[in-house]
Each structure stands twice: as C-alpha cells, then as structure tokens.
C-alpha cells in the first residue's frame, strides 16, 4: 500500500504534507516538537520585544485532516530498506520519503558558545532564547552589542543584518544608540557575501548607525571577559552578544552514509531534489545540500517541486531565493536563483509592505499551500532574477 512519509513539520515538511493531502495522497508526518516556530519571528522577539505567541502555533493545528501526524523523534533512515526508525523504537516503512528535518545548530563547535547562549539567549535557538536576548537588550544602557557568526554557511544569509537593523532601531527609540554601539561582525569579504547586495546594504547600515567588521569568523568566546575572538586573529569586546552557530545536517543515522556530505547535509539532485541515487526519497529545505541559500522560501518552493514530481509532473527546482533584508520602515530582498547571482534590489517602503504581507500569509500558506501557489507564482515570475537583472 502506498505511504508517503514526511519527516519534520517545519516550513518544508508542512507544505509538502498539506499539499499531498489536498491531492488525496495518504501522508504520515513525523515531528519531534509540539509547536511550530516561525523562525524569522525570533528577530522581532529578541530585538523588538514582540510576544512569542505571535510566532508559534501547535503543529496539530497546522496539518490538514488527511495528514496523519506522529509525534516522535526520528533516529535513523535506511534508504535501501525504505525504513525510518524513531528514537523510541517505533519503525515506519514508506513508498516515498520526504526528508525535511532542517539544519542542526552546532553550539559545541565554538568554545564558549553554549555559555554565551545560556547567559544571554540568541535569535536562532528558539523563542525562549530570543526572549532572554530581549530581556538583556532592554537593560543595555552602554557598551557594545555584537551580532556575529561562527561560520559563513547559515540559514537566512541576511539574518544578522536584520538583527543589527532592528536592534539599532530599538536602541535609537530608547535614546541609547549613541551610548550603545551595534556592531555587526561578518565572516565575509564585504558587508554581504554578494558584492552587489553589499553595495546596497553597506550605506544603509551606516545610515542606521550600525558598525561593521568584515572577515570576522567567530572562533571562540570568553563570556566572563566579554571578548569574542575570530579565526582571522581579531578580537571584539562585548557587553551583549549573539553569535549564529555553525550549521550541520540533521543529527540522525542515515544508511547508506554516502548520501551525506561532509557536514551531514543530504546530497540531492539540485533540480529534482531526489536523494542522490534514490528515486523514492527526496530532501528539501535546510537539510539538503542544494547549492542555494537555506531559507523558508527555498523550503516552500522545494516542497512544491517534490509534490509535483510525486504526481508525475517533470517539475524542476530553480534555487530561487527571496530573503528579506528588513530595516526601519523599509526592506530589500536578496533575489537569486541557480546561475543567477543576486540582483541589485533597493530598500523601499513598498518592499517592507510586501514582507509584512508575506509574514501575514505564513500560517495560511503552510496549511493551504495550493491556495497561495498562483499568487506566489505570479510574484516569483514578476521578480525572476533574469527579468529584473537590471535591478528592482
């Protein structure tokens, strides 16, 4: 009997499972958490004091009636035997598998990192860590807030920029931006991996009062002394800091091990998204090694491609990204796809409104993806990097 197994009820897994259910497929969705977190929301919790309840929903409220939701932690996958094993010993077989387990955040890779997060929270590890960050930010009256990263590969490449913009805005409103320095330390040559984007973001960061260090990859953190050391040999003092951890593939056993790359991400065909060497297993979103940015948009579009393929259409993933860079009242997007590096996209108020609309549609688009598909398709066609290569 046909059974499609979807692993992980994050952005990609929920879109895939709900879409399949809307087409009448029998789907089982396995998730270890009871609540789904809208991850960008951590930025607003941590740096603007938003209430976490705005950004979390029980997983069971986000699945359609046709989806069988299993609460449990995946421990291993055997692709040859088409078998998924849970930590509690339960096993599931499948005819088609969709892996959407996201990325693992490796707080142990950087000495001092765990201590830092335990003390100050951050904006990557969860809603309560973000609340903790906010409780420290609102007390910060002088010194330096550092936003940094331990590795150049992390989900949502403009997330540290957004963090810096939002923090600077909050401090400005509190009248403390002069006495508190917001310092963005980036592991790149420029203010953004893409020079085209860097040229747009750099002046905006300066205007908004954010100091920037480039070529600063966090190597270790001394919480007691308030110092961050970089791989490149620099150091920064801090009064408060949030460091984005190194990302790895999901922490599960996968047989055969060759389908994992050196960081544990699942190797896929970058267009069809099937696991290398298997046509009955797919990996989407952050857990795959598809050569594009790890973002919710990518996970959502990947889920659509995989469901199309399961239905027999020759749909291809084009690596499209649409990462918002949110600043005070305005926004820009990092728009790229396979073979098309980011195009110049200026900061405007209209784009900020678009981003507000995207956020407002989030819960509905997870549960009823087929309703939103035509609208999103129109937007992605209108802003295809080939079409707006001259800029937007």
């Amino acid at each position, binding site marked *: 009997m046909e059974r499609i197994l979807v692993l992980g009820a994050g952005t990609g897994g929920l879109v895939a499972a709900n879409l399949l259910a809307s087409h009448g497929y029998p789907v089982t969705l396995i998730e270890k958490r009871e609540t789904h977190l809208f991850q960008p929301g951590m930025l607003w919790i941590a740096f603007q004091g938003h209430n976490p309840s705005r950004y979390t929903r029980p997983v069971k409220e986000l699945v359609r009636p046709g989806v069988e939701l299993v609460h449990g932690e995946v421990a291993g996958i055997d692709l040859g035997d088409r078998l998924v094993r849970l930590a509690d010993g339960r096993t599931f077989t499948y005819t088609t598998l969709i892996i959407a387990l996201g990325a693992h955040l490796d707080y142990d890779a950087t000495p001092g990192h765990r201590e830092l997060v335990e003390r100050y929270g951050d904006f990557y590890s969860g809603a309560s860590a973000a609340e903790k960050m906010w409780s420290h930010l609102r007390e910060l009256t002088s010194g330096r807030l550092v936003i940094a990263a331990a590795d150049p590969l992390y989900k949502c490449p403009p997330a540290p920029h957004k963090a810096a913009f939002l923090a600077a805005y909050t401090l400005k409103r509190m009248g403390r931006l002069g006495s508190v320095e917001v310092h963005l330390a980036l592991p790149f040559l420029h203010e953004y991996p893409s020079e085209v984007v860097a040229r747009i973001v750099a002046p905006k960061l300066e205007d908004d009062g954010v100091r920037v260090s480039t070529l600063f990859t966090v190597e270790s953190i001394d919480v007691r002394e308030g110092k961050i050391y970089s791989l490149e040999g620099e150091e920064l003092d801090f009064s408060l800091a949030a460091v984005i951890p190194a990302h790895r593939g999901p922490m599960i056993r996968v047989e055969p091990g060759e389908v994992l790359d050196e960081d544990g991400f699942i190797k896929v065909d970058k267009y069809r998204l099937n696991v290398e060497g298997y046509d009955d297993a797919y990996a989407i979103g952050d857990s795959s090694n598809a050569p594009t940015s790890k973002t919710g948009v990518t996970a959502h579009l990947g889920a659509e491609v995989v469901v199309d393929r399961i239905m027999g259409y020759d749909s291809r993933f084009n690596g499209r990204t649409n990462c918002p860079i949110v600043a005070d009242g305005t926004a820009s997007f990092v728009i790229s796809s396979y073979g098309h590096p980011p195009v110049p996209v200026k900061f405007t108020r209209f784009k900020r409104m678009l981003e507000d609309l995207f956020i407002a549609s989030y819960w509905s688009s997870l549960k009823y993806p087929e309703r939103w598909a035509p609208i999103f398709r*129109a937007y992605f066609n209108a802003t295809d990097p080939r079409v707006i290569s001259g800029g937007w």
Partner: protein
Amino acid sequence: MQARDPLEMLIEELGDPELQESLEKMVKLVKALNRSGLLDVLLAMADEEVVARLSSMLVTTGTMKLADNIEELTRAAGEVAQALSEPVEPVPLSELVSSLRDPEVLRGLARLLKVLKALGRA
C-alpha cells in the same frame, strides 16, 4: 492539564455580550452582502483559476516596479501639477537657450531622455 471540550468552551464564549453584539452585526453584514449580490461575485472569484489569472495580471514586473516607485512618481506628478498651474509667457528662443544653463532644467532633460529610451525599449 485536562484538555477542555471545545463545545463547552464555545457555549461559555456565547454568554459574552460583546460576542453577541459582534455576531448580530456579522449576520447583518452577511445578509446585506448577499442581497447586493456581492457574495456571489466573491464566491465565483474564490475559484483557483480566477485567482491565478487575476494575480498573474496584477502581479507583474511592471506593477512591482511601479508600486516600488510610487512615492517618487507621485512626488514628481505633484511638482508637475504645481508647474502647470503657474502662469507662463511664451519663451523666446534666446531665453530657451540660456535656460539650458539651469541645472534643474538639465536634470529634467536628462530624465526625459531616459524616459524616452525606456519608452523605446517597451
């Protein structure tokens, strides 16, 4: 914590006078929408294909660029409207040439050339 019966919760909610008032208004609104025929239009538009056609018509590269620049456009239109409302005398050729030294006129001309170029491309 015991999960509460949703029906029980609903009955409790219904005792709330604010909800009662909201519901009464809602019923009036729905009836009015139905009488005006608007509900039928909305129902027909909720069709997937209509949504697809509508969004591919409304959300285009052109409209995205237009909306993005709406503030500049309306500002420019405001300036133009202001200029149009001011009285003018016919300009002799000699003055026309000397007004070409005005940096605002030159910037305007440069913009006009860009617009002409874009029109030619379109």
